[in-house]
């Protein structure tokens, strides 16, 4: 069994929904579709108030090279275009649609393509770009950009990330079990875009034997290797996954390109299949609803723009003990500040938890136990980075590997003194980058 070679932790898996089939959520009474669901510049709204839109119609146009299209998730009327809470923790320009209940596709969409191999590379890339596909694991990097590496970088491996190492989350797991064929074809399509034939591998943590078996069935005839990975966090982090599967080490300041790799998420592969073979833009996604404070834990397929409140109603109810709702996984997700936020392209899960550690101030003095150094998958000294950040020595901190931190949170997970190590590191990163911007401006 393969794994990355430094650090890592074993948090309780808490994957309660691993065997629950994906349920399609009914259309809510209102959809709130933000314009920034990806890394880069927000999309430009191209519809006006009271416009009638069809399902899959473009409502936000990509603005610039690193940006992505946004589509109407159903047919209906534009009710408002205004600033609205976003699961990323800010307010964002959002288009509100009141569904007309007909759920009609726009013209030319939802057609079945006979054979995707007849499309040229440019056609496929255009379809992916038009469909507004972004990395669905959490970062939301536009997929068409990721699939067009600079010509001087020779890509020899495409890795599909089915590790899903975050506790609780099972969305990718169910997608691999239920839509294995689509995932594998999606991967083939992405591979066909590269100039030379490449090695294809799907990395799956060993705690999902049913997903491995389902993928094997379709992957084996196509020379795609399904790699069983050790169940260890953060196995699904890009750099760790590359290390586990190819043995290569993505060093500080390097991108996966530099090591000949492209890593794509399972959900992204399924979305590519939908875009190319079924002519459907990215308007829905699979996510896990879990946590100890929700009555029915489920994997659901929801339209982009579905409010968290509608999801709570669909999954029973949320207990009064809930004090945090998290968008994403418990290790790297974000605590949302309002239940008004909608599902976006990068929402891999929603967790309802009662975080008892919030009641008291947790941070205590460092007892120099060295656990954070031991578990850091990037080989850093998190205690030192946090201390340096607290002392605001922002020149010093860059010399000890600040940029190398992937913010996986393993150090904070293990700290017996409850220090918010990764928070201090993120704080330093934010200040360092704003200082650099100021300098260059």
């Amino acid at each position: 069994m393969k794994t990355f070679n430094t650090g890592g932790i074993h948090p309780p898996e808490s994957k309660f929904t691993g065997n629950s089939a994906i349920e399609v959520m009914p259309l809510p009474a209102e959809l709130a579709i933000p314009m920034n669901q990806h890394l880069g510049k927000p999309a430009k709204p191209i519809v006006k108030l009271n416009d009638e839109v069809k399902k899959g119609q473009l409502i936000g146009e990509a603005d610039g090279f690193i940006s992505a299209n946004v589509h109407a998730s159903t047919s209906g009327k534009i009710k408002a275009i205004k600033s609205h809470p976003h699961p990323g923790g800010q307010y964002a320009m959002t288009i509100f649609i009141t569904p007309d209940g007909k759920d009609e596709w726009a013209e030319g969409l939802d057609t079945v393509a006979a054979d995707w191999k007849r499309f040229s590379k440019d056609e496929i890339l255009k379809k992916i770009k038009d469909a507004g596909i972004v990395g669905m694991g959490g970062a939301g990097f536009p997929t068409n950009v990721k699939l067009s590496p600079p010509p001087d970088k020779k890509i020899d491996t495409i890795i599909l990330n089915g590790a899903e190492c975050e506790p609780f989350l099972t969305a990718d797991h169910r997608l691999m079990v239920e839509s294995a064929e689509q995932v594998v074809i999606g991967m083939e399509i992405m591979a066909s875009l590269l100039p030379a034939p490449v090695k294809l591998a799907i990395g799956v943590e060993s705690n999902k034997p049913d997903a491995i078996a389902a993928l094997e069935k379709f992957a084996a005839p196509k020379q795609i290797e399904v790699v069983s990975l050790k169940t260890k966090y953060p196995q699904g982090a890009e750099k760790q996954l590359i290390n586990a599967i190819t043995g290569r080490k993505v060093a500080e300041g390097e991108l996966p390109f530099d090591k000949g790799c492209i890593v794509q998420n399972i959900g992204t592969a399924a979305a590519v299949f939908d875009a190319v073979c079924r002519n459907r833009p990215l308007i829905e996604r699979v996510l896990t609803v879990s946590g100890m404070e929700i009555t029915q834990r489920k994997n659901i397929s929801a339209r982009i723009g579905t409010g968290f409140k509608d999801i709570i109603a669909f999954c029973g109810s949320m207990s009064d003990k809930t004090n945090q709702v998290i968008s994403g996984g418990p290790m790297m997700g974000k605590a949302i500040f309002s239940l008004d936020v909608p599902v976006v392209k990068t929402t891999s899960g929603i967790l309802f938890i009662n975080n008892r550690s919030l009641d008291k101030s947790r941070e205590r003095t460092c007892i120099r136990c060295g656990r954070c150094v031991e578990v850091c998958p990037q080989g850093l000294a998190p205690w030192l980075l946090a201390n340096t950040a607290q002392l605001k020595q922002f020149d010093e901190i860059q010399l000890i590997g600040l940029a190398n931190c992937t913010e996986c949170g393993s150090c904070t997970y293990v700290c017996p003194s409850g220090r918010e190590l990764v928070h201090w590191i993120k704080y330093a990163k934010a200040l360092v980058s704003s200082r650099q911007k100021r300098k260059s401006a």
Partner: protein
Amino acid sequence: MDSVKLKVSYAPFVHTKDSIESVMYNVALALAPATVMSIYLFGMPALLVTVICIVSCIGFEWLMDTIRKKPASCLDGSAFVTGLLLALNVPSNLPIWMLVVGSFIAIAAAKHVFGGLGHNIFNPALVARVFLLVSFPAAMTSWPVPFSIDMQTAASPLGILKTDGVEAAMKSLDLMNGFYGTMNGSMGETSALALLAGAAWLFYKRYITIYIPFTMLGSVLLFSAIFHMIDPSAYAPPLFHLVTGGLILGAFFMATDMVTSPLSIRGQVIFGLGCGLLTAVIRLWGGYPEGVSFAILIMNGFVPLIDNWDLNERKAIHQKKSEKK
């Protein structure tokens, strides 16, 4: 649903159940076999010494917190462990007032003067032991004989080695007795078996790593073996050095003290080697029969230097990389 008030905090939202308390009390648990063994060997006085040391350490911790106007840390387990370690480091017939003075030195002079838990440079229990040793040398080196009812005392095997030479020392001790613990010495130092059982627990819980104890034991063994081979009549065999004195207690429980040992693996190796070599040098040629406490304390002093060296290495690697670009 409307009654729910959402709170925002930063990821990760799950944490281990480990805390300062769990770390400290697990160390205490790991010392339990040695404590029980010492009570079995030396009787009720050993129990009394243990209780006095722990209670007075916790008491001084509370006092210092109050004086320094800091949140009470007296029950976080660190004072408990310091008291227990101090008890295991003294003979069981030490007068009670000396124990209280020792506890004061450990908590006030070695720990809180530097800023309390996490900030002390030297291991508090060792500072107290060395303080007692240089202040009351007679009381600290009259070792009760195990199982003696009338508190009969005698020199420890290492003491005999220093005063009467190898032959007398070897005659005074069957090595297996040294392993099980039925020899003269400090309360917790005598039984290698009980100490190793506790150390195994700490390894299992991953609270200590192998680097410090094994490099320390290894370097003592190697160093004494070399000199034993050169002149067997002047230098005792390595196994004698292994089971006598505080070497095993020191290597597994004192040198590995998290606060006063280096954080990086390479730093820990250097630290362990230093502790081992200094122990051997003091035992072979020093004025004192036993060198473990001094060796660890001296190396404690080097820890900031070792950590700084590791830091500079990290920076050097970083600079090399950015030059390449």
